[in-house]
């Protein structure tokens, strides 16, 4: 793992069981986390436009919003991949795409992770949470390959173990942590408080 506080982009992938896991993780993150957070959660294209965002926003002091095309990364904000779009990181901003689903998913965790890995390289942290497929495994490997950090929810503590298990298989040196220890690990990796919050 690289020096503490050196990471500034956290990308999180979740599928089945993700809402509860994300609420638990975000609740425990400090409001002055010194990083941009981006989340790809599998959800139906016709899902309610604000319900998911509101459910997450209710448990965290961080700002939570759907990412817009070309929106700049912003520390202390949690950006969500909109339903029916892929979310990508490109330099210092987000980009969207409506290309075909990858591994049956749009948003795809791999698409977010691979682009984040290339944009932020060793400043990137990838987190794979609960899910019933193998999305995120390739992307997490790409994050490690380019010098970033990898965290996987301990499959034993996940509502569905398949996605974290596939991630551990693809990235054997990932930090495998129970859900309630992931926020602490992210805080250590990214640091806090360098930027005053408005």
């Amino acid at each position, binding site marked *: 793992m690289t020096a503490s506080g050196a990471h500034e982009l956290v990308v999180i992938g979740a599928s089945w069981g993700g809402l509860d896991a994300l609420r638990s993780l975000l609740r425990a993150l400090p409001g002055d986390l010194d990083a941009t957070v981006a989340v790809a959660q599998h959800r139906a294209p016709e899902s309610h436009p604000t319900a998911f965002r509101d459910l997450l926003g209710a448990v965290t002091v961080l700002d939570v919003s759907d990412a817009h095309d070309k929106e700049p990364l912003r520390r202390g904000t949690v950006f969500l991949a909109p339903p029916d779009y892929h979310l990508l990181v490109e330099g210092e901003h987000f*980009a969207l795409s*409506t290309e075909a689903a990858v591994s049956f998913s749009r948003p795809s965790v791999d698409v977010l992770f691979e682009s984040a890995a290339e944009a932020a390289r060793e400043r990137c942290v990838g987190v794979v949470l609960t899910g019933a497929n193998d999305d995120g495994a390739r992307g997490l490997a790409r994050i490690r390959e380019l010098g970033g950090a990898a965290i996987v929810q301990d499959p034993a503590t996940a509502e569905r173990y398949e996605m974290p298990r596939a991630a551990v298989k693809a990235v054997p040196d990932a930090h495998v942590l129970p859900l309630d220890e992931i926020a602490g690990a992210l805080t250590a990796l990214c640091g806090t408080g360098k930027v005053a919050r408005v």
Partner: protein
Amino acid sequence: MAVPVEEDERDRRSSPGGRLDLEALELQLLLEGVYKQYGFDFREYAPASLKRRVWRRVHAEHLTTISGLLEKVLHDATCMERLLLDLSINVTSMFRDPTFYVAFRSQVVPFLRTYPFTRIWVAGCSTGEEVYSLAILLTEEELYERARIYATDINEVVLERARAGVFPLDRMRDYTDNYIRAGGRRSFSEYYLAKYEGALFDRQLTRNVVWAQHNLVQDRAFQEFNVILCRNVMIYFDRPLQNRVHRLFHESLERFGILCLGHKESIRFTEFEDSYEELDPHEKLYRRVK
């Protein structure tokens, strides 16, 4: 004479980060080659998704590098056609984002009713799903007779498909759901004939549609419009190019005309933020005010 390469320099080049830099160079050369040889300009496309599409083509051609694809594209025009399809096709569906059509009915239709004749531009229409959806909506609102829809795309091949009006039959169930949620007033099946694997759409829907090749990156304004739809097209462009296309739309839209963008596209991150007022923040309907 070969210049000796320092050992750590060699390490850097063969590291994952070094390979990433090399890949960026190869991509730049490919886009430059495509532009110089064929005139299609993808140099200002948003790189992250562009790169994914290029790699898909590399693998489909059984190649291993982007430079390999450059060589093949330069010497084989049919390979260029396949790459062009990969780079320019926009995956979409009929009545995608049904709530957009609901908002169009309630906020744009009353505006269109104030004109004896209206011109609507669907920019980057791809295979035409949005054009047919719009034609159905205007028909149901009894506005179709006095409207002309200009449907343009960079790619002749997709325009040909759009003109043919045949869509996969297995999509009709989804499209019917979308149509109902979009506020459709009839039975969706009234608009097409099921034939073999295809659904052939009613020719009446396209009698006021002008299909034309137009390149948003390189071509000029050609008409003044009351409404412009360009949904999920500019997400593939980088910011400078987005700004230029927004200038083109601004020039092409009458004062108080309406610009419709995709749900997650915002005028906020462009140079034209002050030229529009937001009619509907969620549906991204904007009215040109200056």
